[in-house]
């Protein structure tokens, strides 16, 4: 029972912490000190709440305790300097505004335009998701001291920026929201694209990203792209158990055991997406989610509606101008209209993607479909020599070997 309560407390704390942090930062201004103070308040809470029960207003409790620490700190700083004038802060003044707005403001700050994506990711995981520096370091395979420094420098960059904290102006919000969504999606992919063994810690990043998207959705329930991103991640994550062999080697979509796909995640993703598309402001996450949903709802690989997927990739390519989308459209074209049609689309992408490994991998796949074994082997080998992912390199090398063996 004690264990159950401790786990309950931990869940509650993780939900309450970003809201408390946002309120304390808003009240006192200094992000770094505020974070320390909230951390101390959380440590106090985890022992007190487990033993004595949860307070009626957990967020208020954390704000109160953290604000008291802030005031103490300011007092002792002032005393050290021989002054007593600026210590009058009343902890009660740091009330949460609208809860979800505060969390959103915190996310906007962590995804501040002054930060690089790597820093924004680290700070978001620290301040909003409540991961420890050790956990974040483990997840990104970086020593703890390096990660601590990255986070500390990120905080300094924000502090030095002209607009350190708070909701960005109305006209800047769409752009800032795009940054937030991108950071969340990057966190998800970091966790999804690696799998077993020593990388297990990274898998939890996907769950964190989904949790973060849920938090953003609470603040912006009517935004279809927020719902679209959440749907996309759920639909992608639903394939987690099927996408790799126990030793971590990749299994392509058409060969996956669809019985292993997570129905609950698929159902939630599909429902979210239907609701989002109904709002009539289609964006790239909704389109990607719609493609994922087409795959997720095909009972067998052979039942996939490639014609529909082709249309969606066409829309996505026009919307984003991203040549990587063109590669996927070429695959969909090959599946709908035959490999030659797909291959001629790839020719248009040659100039834009130069020697990117995915261009070679796609061409290899389509050449194999067309029956050109020698050409496919050469392209699989080139792709293997250019990828930066070890599981992908193993997969591509094995594809070349398989065709090589068949050729005899």
């Amino acid at each position, binding site marked *: 029972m004690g264990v159950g309560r401790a786990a309950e407390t931990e869940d509650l704390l993780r939900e309450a912490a970003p809201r408390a942090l946002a309120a304390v930062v808003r009240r006192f201004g200094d992000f770094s000190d505020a974070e320390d103070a909230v951390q101390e308040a959380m440590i106090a809470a985890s022992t007190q709440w487990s033993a004595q029960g949860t307070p009626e207003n957990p967020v208020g409790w954390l704000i109160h305790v953290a604000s008291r620490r802030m005031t103490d700190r300011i007092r002792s700083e002032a005393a050290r300097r021989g002054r007593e004038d600026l210590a009058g802060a009343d902890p009660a003044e740091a009330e949460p505004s609208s809860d979800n707005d505060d969390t959103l403001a915190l996310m906007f700050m962590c995804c501040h335009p002054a930060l690089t994506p790597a820093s924004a990711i680290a700070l978001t995981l620290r301040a909003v998701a409540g991961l420890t520096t050790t956990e974040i370091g483990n997840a990104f395979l970086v020593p703890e001291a390096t990660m601590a420094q990255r986070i500390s420098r990120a905080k300094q960059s924000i502090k030095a920026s002209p607009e350190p904290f708070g909701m960005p102006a109305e006209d800047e919000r769409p752009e800032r929201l795009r940054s937030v969504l991108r950071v969340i999606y990057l966190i998800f992919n970091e966790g999804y694209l690696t799998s077993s*063994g*020593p990388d297990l810690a990274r898998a939890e990043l996907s769950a964190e990203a989904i949790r973060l998207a849920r938090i953003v959705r609470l603040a912006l329930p009517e935004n279809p792209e927020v719902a679209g991103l959440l749907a996309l991640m759920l639909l992608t994550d639903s394939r987690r158990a099927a996408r790799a062999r126990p*030793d*971590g*080697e990749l299994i392509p979509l058409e060969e996956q055991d669809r019985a292993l796909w997570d129905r609950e995640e698929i159902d939630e993703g599909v429902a979210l997406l239907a609701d989002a598309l109904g709002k009539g402001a289609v964006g790239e996450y909704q389109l990607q989610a719609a493609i994922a949903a087409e795959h997720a709802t095909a009972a067998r690989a052979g039942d996939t509606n490639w014609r529909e997927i082709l249309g969606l990739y066409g829309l996505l390519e026009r919307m984003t101008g991203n040549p990587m989308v063109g590669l996927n459209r070429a695959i969909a074209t090959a599946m709908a209209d035959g490999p030659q049609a797909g291959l001629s689309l790839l020719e248009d992408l040659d100039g834009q993607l130069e020697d990117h490994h995915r261009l070679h991998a796609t061409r290899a796949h389509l050449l194999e479909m067309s029956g050109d074994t020698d050409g496919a*082997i050469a392209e*699989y*080998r080139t792709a*293997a*020599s*250019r*990828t*930066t992912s*070890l599981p992908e*390199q*193993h997969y591509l*090398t*094995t594809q*070349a*070997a*398989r065709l*090589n*063996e068949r050729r005899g």
Partner: protein
Amino acid sequence: MKFMLLQNYGGVPEGVPPMSEWAPEEIEAHITFQKDLNAELRERGELVEAQALTAPALAKFVVSDGGAPVVTDGPFPESKELLAGYRMIDVESTERAIEIAARGSAAPGPGGLPIKQSIEVREVMGPIEH
């Protein structure tokens, strides 16, 4: 004692074909061997880090005199000399480092036979000993 166990692309005997010309199950056996060895070393508390590097096609050489750097891209005629990957281990003795290197060298190749990969064993310099 920390050691780097380094392997180059050229460290296999003449006549061993590149991996994409092996049979798929030979590739699988090789990869499984490497993963199992890493798992075993990790289990024993001896593995610091094991990494494979991207292929020579993506390598760059950089030289600078303090001004704009001179960057040389591949392909390189001497790509056999490039590092393919490494293990860093923390072990009790040089003998143990050699034992681990020997295990890695005998990783299975075509026909399941040891490929006899040459492993460069280099002790990492440490602080002053007292």
